[in-house]
């Protein structure tokens, strides 16, 4: 796969998302949760827990995962998969960070909106 920079949309600055925390991105297809790990890596997931649609953006971020605020499912930020014996998956949106800006995969966002 060969993606050009223009396939990605600038959604905000790295500093907009707190470390070990998250930020909601209100997008046409529904909310996206942006997460930042302790190491500063950024992840973007649909803001909906596969369990009962809990807002993942409101959970506690630890390692490369987030604990859902409603019933404590643990979601892997890289794959969107529920960890442990819980089954389910949240859509992940590809992220790039360039010059302190957060860029999201436009096609994935459009697909979300469609």
């Amino acid at each position, binding site marked *: 796969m060969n993606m050009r920079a223009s396939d990605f949309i600038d959604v905000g600055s790295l500093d907009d998302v707190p470390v070990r925390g998250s930020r909601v991105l209100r997008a046409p297809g529904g909310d996206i949760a*942006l997460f930042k790990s302790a190491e500063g890596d950024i992840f973007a997931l649909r803001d909906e827990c596969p369990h009962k649609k809990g807002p993942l953006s*409101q959970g*506690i971020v630890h390692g490369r995962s987030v604990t859902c605020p409603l019933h404590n499912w643990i979601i892997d930020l890289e794959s969107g998969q529920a960890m442990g014996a819980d089954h389910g998956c949240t859509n992940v949106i590809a992220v790039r960070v360039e010059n302190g800006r957060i860029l999201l995969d436009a096609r994935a966002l459009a697909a979300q909106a469609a």
Partner: protein
Amino acid sequence: MTEKLVVIGNGMAAGRVLDHLFEQAPGRYAVTVFGAEPRVNYNRILLSPVLSGEKTFDDIVTHDHAWYAAHGVDLRAGVTVTAIDRAAKTVTDTTGTVTPYDKLLVATGSSPFIIPVPGANLPGVVTYRDLDDVNAMLAAAEKGGSAVVIGGGLLGLEAAAGLAMRGMKVSVVHLMPTLMERQLDAAAGYLLQGAMEARGVEVFTKANTKAIVEEDGRAVGVLLEDGRTLAADLVVMAVGIRPNAGLAKAAGLNVNRGLVVDDEMRTNDGDVFAVGECVEHRGQCYGLVAPLFEMAKVVAARLTDDPAPRYEGSFLSTKLKVTGVDLFSAGDFADGPDRDEIVLRDAARKIYKRLVLKDDQLIGAVMYGDTADGPYFFELVKSGEDVSDIRDTLIFGRSFAGAGAGDPNAAVAGLPDSAEICGCNGVCKGAIVGAIQAKGLTDVNGVRAHTKASASCGSCTGLVEQVLALTLGEGFQKADVEPMCGCTDLGHDDVRRLIVAKELKTIPQVMQELEWKTSCGCAKCRPALNYYLLCDWPGEYQDDSQSRFINERVHANIQKDGTYSVVPRMWGGMTSPSELRAIADVADKFAIPAVKVTGGQRIDLLGVKKEDLPAVWADLNAAGMVSGHAYAKGLRTVKTCVGTDWCRFGTQDSTGLGIKIEKFMWGSWTPAKLKLAVSGCPRNCAEATCKDVGVICVESGYEVHFAGAAGLHVRQTDLLCKVATEEECMEHIAALTQLYREQGRYLERMYKWAKRVGLDTIRAQIVDDAARRRALFDRFVLSQSTAQIDPWAERVAGKEAHEFNPLKLSLAEAAE
């Protein structure tokens, strides 16, 4: 292609087979496990400590969700298999799903036997087999009253002791003349009966149950054959078990009493194995874990094409897991003309030991009161060694023959390497010593992880500690604390102690210094650490909002649809027309869908959008209202009654005192939520005696009560002290709260903390020791000096703005 292994039953036997299988041939099978119980696998034999309150369910889980995920096991928890089609090699379950297998393992365990008397199926009659049964018993025990346990065997007695510890009045009804007659001789059974009676359990032997008595559709008693009736709010049937082999039988597998297997644990279908209590091997069905762990090894070997291990039956030994009752039996101890016995009795110390010999060999042993030599005798029974040389002193055990008496480790020191230490898992002394030396183990947990010794019923933990002590000498330190979470081996108390002793002042510092195993903790330890640091370094520690659960991070309660609820403070439950008007205006302005009066004497606005929170708060602040901390592990409400202001019975100004207390204590963080109430007279209209702290006003002053609860558990408060003035009342309450803040484990309500450290210990520090009380009070005041900032006002002023302002992306950009 990976072969498909389907396992029916997710109990102890199945778990052990899979442990061995994944160790020996990881990845060889794609495994699907069906478990009728809607949960992960747990150590069934530790249900009794859960019943008695000595352990929680989490403590006894053996395979957690992470384990299933790590081994790629498809767990169908809560799904029962209803049919096996051996021709098609599939199983069908309650959801109608058909799952194919290459190899099938039946591990369905057994079911409690229900004696077919009238009323046996009434509500109020339970059996004792799984967690649901324990929960049913606990629910009954919450209400108190009396329980009748039918069956005086291992399960019945453990249930009886557990229910007695939960405060029920318990009787045991047993058909035979003495308790546990299959494992104990009459003399030991008699001593056991005395021990049960000393625990407040009434024992009826030679008592045959005729019927369960019904009233209004539920069980209210047990009618005995001799005409007596025992009243019962709860009836527990623990009269025996039956192998669960119906499913196998319907599939045309060979079933007698249990599902018949050969020495390879194979049924009459070469692709179908069976293990555990559901099987019958050489005419025997077993009801203890040791045999099925041996079976599990053989099954795993067969599944990985290792032809060597065979199962040839088991010798059994029994222990009873009732705290404070030491009892051990092994082998055959029936009387007989060809047998010889040696008996030792010490009536004063309630010790009884009996050895049964035949042809100069030890064939059975029963011990009550002092069981230290149990493993030694069990070893002699199994080995069939000639004991004629040591016969004279045999009954005194190994320590008499070997090392000096009085040395607590002597009995273990004298054991040969082949002696079995852990009966459940068949681990011998040599294996434990070997593991300690090879892996550098230093504690019981390490031994558990590497050898499984003491990992099942836990009654050999003391022996394992002795082996550790012998092997490591001085280097051994006893430790049995529950770790805070998977990120550390330290328990809450150690972490708290070290935070103060090492002056650790940030979460990363704690994790570094105390050698956390994860990079940044987890959702269990981070909120706890944040609280401990906040409590121990008031004014200094910077609260870490990312280590707070959502409600405390945004100062509102999250609802199931992702909106929030807002509860402003109403001091002591008092409000005014202007406050009510402001609340009404806010509700209109922000189209808040629900306005409710809470159980805490104030008003809840439910369904507020997160982005609206700061504006809602701004309007409430403008009307003089602040956050009610309805979301906090901290001070919630102080409920009051109308007291002398209005009430014809009021003795003191309960409303005024409640408001004073709430104004003094709001904003403080505590290990778990903290609720108070003040009632103006003993009629107690503010329900003060089920709060964490409650005050009852009386003519001569104030009674301060504490450690009550009315949620998951209902507990009436105990009296802390009686004081004469409002000032003394506030001082005692603040000091008590501060002690709880400093000693409570995160999420431990005051009544649980009080139970753990002891009510008298607390009274001694707060009531009897005035200097200590004053010091605690001063520390509380110091902490409050930086705690009482309205979190709503701070956020209205812009703090944590990112929480409430989402980033936005327009449609045009996305569509581009």
